[in-house]
């Protein structure tokens, strides 16, 4: 399958692959472990729109060395190719990345990010973007460490109350 990648990271043996419908419950559980909100409808909708769809990417990372009692899913990344909004050429967007806390700092986020960038590049884009909250130092540092820098756009907003 496209996007397959094996590597040894000390004990865990991490595989990244494209998500399949059967991953949905584990994605919901992993997300709710971290965000403390169980977003069943949201993830059902996201799976419907992203899994197996052209120009859309939902990759998961699994630990193949976690034993039979452990759910292998340890992270995932979601993105898509968007074109022409805001006057932009076709460009890959990373929408979400999430790694199980006990697996963070072990290169799994990097592996997922590299896998999605490769898939997007294979599909013809030359630029990958994301958006990070200013105070979200963890994700901002992660994307910076992957070589991302401020792009040519600035996000603006206002209250309409």
């Amino acid at each position, binding site marked *: 399958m496209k996007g397959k990648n094996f590597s040894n990271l000390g004990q865990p043996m991490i595989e990244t692959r494209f998500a399949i419908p059967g991953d949905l419950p584990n994605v919901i559980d992993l997300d709710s472990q971290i965000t403390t909100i169980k977003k069943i409808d949201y993830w059902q909708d996201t799976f419907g729109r992203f899994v197996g769809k052209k120009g859309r990417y939902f990759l998961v990372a699994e630990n193949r060395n976690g034993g039979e009692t452990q759910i292998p899913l340890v992270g995932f990344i979601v993105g898509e190719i968007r074109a022409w909004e805001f006057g932009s050429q076709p460009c890959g967007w990373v929408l979400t990345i999430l790694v199980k806390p006990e697996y963070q700092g072990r290169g799994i986020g990097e592996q997922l990010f590299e896998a999605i960038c490769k898939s997007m590049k294979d599909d013809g884009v030359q630029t990958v973007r994301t958006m990070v909250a*200013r105070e979200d*130092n963890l994700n901002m540092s992660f994307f*910076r*460490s992957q070589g991302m820098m401020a792009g040519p756009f600035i996000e603006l907003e206002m209250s309409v109350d």
Partner: protein
Amino acid sequence: MRLQKSTQFGLYAVLELARNPERQLSVLDIANLYGISSHHLAKVLRDLGRAGLVDAVRGAGGGYTFSGNARRTTLMDIINIFEDIGSDETVGRVQGGYEGVQPALQLVLGEIDDIAKATFGSITIETLLKTMGWRKK
């Protein structure tokens, strides 16, 4: 935005030492490399030493080595040793004038400062060295 001279010297010194943590460099070595004042740099290195980012090796052949954690130390951590960006009102107070001009300008400058702080706070020494392809393999 412009960083103070001490901050710039601190960044040069930390990055130069961190790119090869086993290497010792004297104040003069770094000053000559960057064409900066060795007197000023000596003071900056003492401040970096107090912050735990460099170790002084005394005696003949002595110098400084990087002793911080390159994966955890951000550019903001170094900047904070020497200056406090965006902490004060950056638009000077004036007597009179149209009410609201000064706060509006302050708001814009605050927005720029917030972006600068988020940027400096998200770039670690390791990330910057990696970006530059500088880190000793």
